[in-house]
């Protein structure tokens, strides 16, 4: 096994390649760390990358910008040896390379930080960092744990990371896990780091911290490729931006010389307006209220601590927050998938704390679940069978224990037509539809229940722009009709534009409840990171009593 020599493989030193040379953008500079030349990658029926060029100069942050499905990740998987390109060359440090596996890419000094971290949760930070590259002692008979520990500490010192090598990965924050991923790549002697949507799971403050890390890394001669679909991040952090659209490269630009509107149009290929209107509407009676609700997760850890909230007919209450701060468990308690350990839940005048899930459904509670492929749809069932999920015992579709399948079929076809599910085939299995169309079917099924409360969690996650606009419109329409809506989303723009009131959840508690127009995105970000609003200490943070 090759012994990694972290920290010593790059002899460039901190001063070697700090200055940015924009001449690289013209392709005249030969000091390219990575050069992807005419990469084409096809999948059955789709061309994921079509003759894409990418030139990344050493010691810079290079953003790869594009919408979901533009082929960014595919291109990086080619660079990382996970896919072999059908056409084109991969040139690293001026030398053409063929990668059969990530191992080859790692040996060539390339490291990848995946969006979904590739960490083994029950192992320690140090064990994860060394995984697959463990130095050994006693002729390979034992892992040299002291040496791993030493080298990890050296790396942390060098790049200014504050990470405890002995902590278990599942016990550290997401931001730290990301640093562990970066350390893992550095431990293997990576000179080029690929970061796939690195900000997706971070709070705005953690994002700032990440930018600092990137700066430190490039200052020490490392090269960063930064995959993102967020314009601001690309312009903020990158020295150069390559835009991908529909699998093709639409050019590389210098962020200092391009305005954002032009960049946006280049990325999407058309003008984009994402402005949902949410005029204030007359609200009615309280439909849902919780008092002092406390919920434990599967491991018995209290993740929701004493939540009070009220949702009235005709209003949208948004819950913002970084994923994993108890939103999921709170929603499960409200929708009947998890029994709260303390507190009461009232719905339309009844105490429903211990009601079964079915009883809640029958009483007009619609629920768009977070995970449509685990919960919302039965993937091997066709849309007809999925159309009755949740109503399989309701009088509308069943009598005497028998399901009225022709009636269900008509219902499913109606949803497909009204909610524009494509392809419009009720006999097709749910798994054969794209994520956006799956979501439209769920939204249709839930909205057609004639609900008095809609609980929507991340209703547009992974959904294309067109379907997103459609789902937003339907939510606002329901609100106009006097339905109470509880919306959970980690997309700030979505939750700010739709909500009438906005609660920020952090570590199982509501940090603040405000009018979404009264706070800036920065303030919201701070609260999502746990900082309580200044000077508002006298105001009770619970939405139940804030009105």
């Amino acid at each position, binding site marked *: 096994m090759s012994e990694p020599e972290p920290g010593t493989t790059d002899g460039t030193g901190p001063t070697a390649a700090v200055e940015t040379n924009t001449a690289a953008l013209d392709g005249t500079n030969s000091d390219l760390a990575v050069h992807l030349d005419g990469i084409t990658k096809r999948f059955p029926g789709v061309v994921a990358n079509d003759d894409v060029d990418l030139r990344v100069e050493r010691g810079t942050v290079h953003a790869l910008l594009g919408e979901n499905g533009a082929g960014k*990740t595919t291109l990086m*998987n080619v660079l*990382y040896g*996970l*896919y072999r390109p059908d056409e084109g060359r991969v040139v690293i440090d001026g030398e053409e390379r063929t990668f059969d*596996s*990530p*191992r080859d890419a*790692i040996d060539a000094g390339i490291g*990848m930080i*995946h969006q979904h971290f*590739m*960490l*083994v*949760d*029950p*192992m320690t930070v140090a*064990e*994860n960092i060394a*995984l*697959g*590259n*463990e130095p*050994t002692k006693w002729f*390979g*008979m*034992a*892992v040299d744990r002291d040496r791993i520990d030493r080298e990890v500490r050296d790396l942390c010192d060098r790049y200014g990371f504050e990470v405890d090598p002995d902590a278990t990965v599942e016990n550290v924050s997401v931001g730290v896990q990301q640093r562990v991923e970066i350390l*893992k790549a550095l431990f293997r002697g990576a000179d080029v780091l690929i970061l796939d949507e690195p900000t997706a799971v971070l709070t705005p403050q953690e994002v700032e911290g990440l930018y600092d890390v990137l700066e430190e890394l490039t200052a020490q001669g490392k090269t960063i490729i930064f995959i993102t679909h967020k314009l601001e991040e690309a312009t903020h952090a990158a020295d150069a931006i390559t835009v991908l659209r529909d699998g093709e490269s639409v050019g590389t630009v210098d962020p200092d010389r391009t305005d954002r509107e032009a960049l946006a149009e280049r990325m999407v290929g058309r003008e984009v307006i994402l402005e949902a209107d949410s005029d204030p509407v007359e609200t009615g009676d309280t439909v849902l209220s919780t008092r002092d609700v406390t919920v434990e997760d599967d491991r018995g850890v209290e993740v929701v601590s004493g939540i009070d909230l009220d949702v009235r007919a005709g209003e949208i209450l948004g819950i913002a927050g970084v994923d994993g701060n108890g939103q999921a468990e709170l929603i499960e308690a409200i929708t009947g998938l998890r029994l709260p350990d303390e507190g009461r839940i009232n719905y339309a005048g009844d105490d429903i704390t211990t009601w079964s899930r079915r009883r809640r459904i029958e009483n007009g509670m619609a629920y768009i679940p977070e995970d449509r492929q685990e919960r919302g749809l039965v993937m091997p069932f066709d849309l007809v069978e999925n159309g009755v999920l949740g109503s399989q015992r309701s009088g509308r579709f069943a009598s005497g224990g028998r399901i009225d399948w022709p009636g269900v079929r008509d219902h499913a076809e109606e949803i497909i037509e009204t909610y524009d599910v494509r392809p419009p085939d009720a006999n097709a299995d749910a798994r054969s539809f794209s994520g956006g169309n799956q979501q439209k079917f769920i939204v249709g099924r839930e909205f057609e229940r004639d609900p008095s409360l809609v609980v929507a969690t991340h209703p547009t996650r992974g959904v294309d722009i067109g379907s997103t606009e459609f789902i937003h419109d339907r939510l606002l329409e329901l609100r106009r009709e006097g339905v109470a809506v509880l919306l959970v989303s980690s997309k700030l723009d979505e939750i700010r534009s739709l909500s009438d009131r906005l609660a920020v959840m952090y570590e199982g508690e509501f940090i603040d409840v405000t009018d979404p127009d009264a706070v800036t995105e920065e303030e919201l970000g701070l609260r999502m990171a746990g900082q309580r609003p200044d000077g508002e200490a006298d105001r009770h943070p619970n939405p139940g009593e804030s009105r």
Partner: protein
Amino acid sequence: MTEVTTMRNSLHRARAALEQRPLAAAVGGVAAVLVVLWATPASWQTSTLRFAVPIALAAIGGIFAEKSGVINIGIEGLLIVSAFSAIVVVDWLGDGGATAGVPNLWWGMLIGVLVSVLFALLFAIVCLEFEADQIIAGLAVWLISLGLAPFASRILFDSPNTANITRFENVTVPVLSELPVVGYLLFDTEPQVYIMLAGAVAGWYLLSRTTFGRWVVASGENPKALDTAGVDVRKVRYAAVLLSGVFAGLGGAGFGLGTLGTFAGTGDTVINGRGFIAIATYLLANYHPIGALLGSFLFAGLNSMQSGLQAAGYAIPTELIRTIPHMSVIVVLVLVGRTRLPDAAGDHYESGED
């Protein structure tokens, strides 16, 4: 139900505490063992150790397979084929003799392990190459073994039971066997007991101290993390499943040659669910090889106590006594509750899928 939950929680806490403080656990364990040794008859102790052999070794093998992400429920089958083939080989080479300077018993041991590994290889290929459902494939391995042993026995011996062979004799370690309390137990015993004790220590070392052990754990928890770190998940899983074949083979052959001396092939065969008891054992031990060894003493102790009760002629029906170890498995499973299985256990992993 709440009482069960309370007991379960205290069990889990105790288990977690033991794992966090290995030194305290070791001291406490030794103390507890000494008390048990002082309080129980020597004959029960020796027979417990012998009955523990197939359970402990099969459990340790099962730990490796399951930790790597392959649930090997066919381990019962591996015990059957290894015990059977070991006895057949000894009978064929000549009971009590030696071949090429090596006693035939040891040839039986070797072949028993090889046959077990062969079956483990079959299981590994079926699961890793052809994406078979691990549980069903494991059941199939069990059923095939269940049919094959008596089938072969009828051809060779005209009966579902094999001939009798002379079993392993005690090996006495000089000086150490004179130690008070544990000497006669640990240093004046049969070879398969030494193998079990050494196997438990080796299993623990391999799993917790070597590179391979870490890869096994990563392969079961997050194979993609291991794959992207440049390690071939499939090779790790193959190695782990074959290793489960080695351990189960040692357990089965050791049990056959040291304790049974003949293989009875009727019904569930003489192995009689010991492989499944082994699975319950490692769940109880939370995948810790030393814990699995201690856990196997629990079931083996009940097993030998049952023999003792029968011999003492208590009025309890023998048929019911015989099920005591099996009932205790259910009690243990209820107390353990859902053990946190490795995240990717039971799932096929295909490198490169996204």
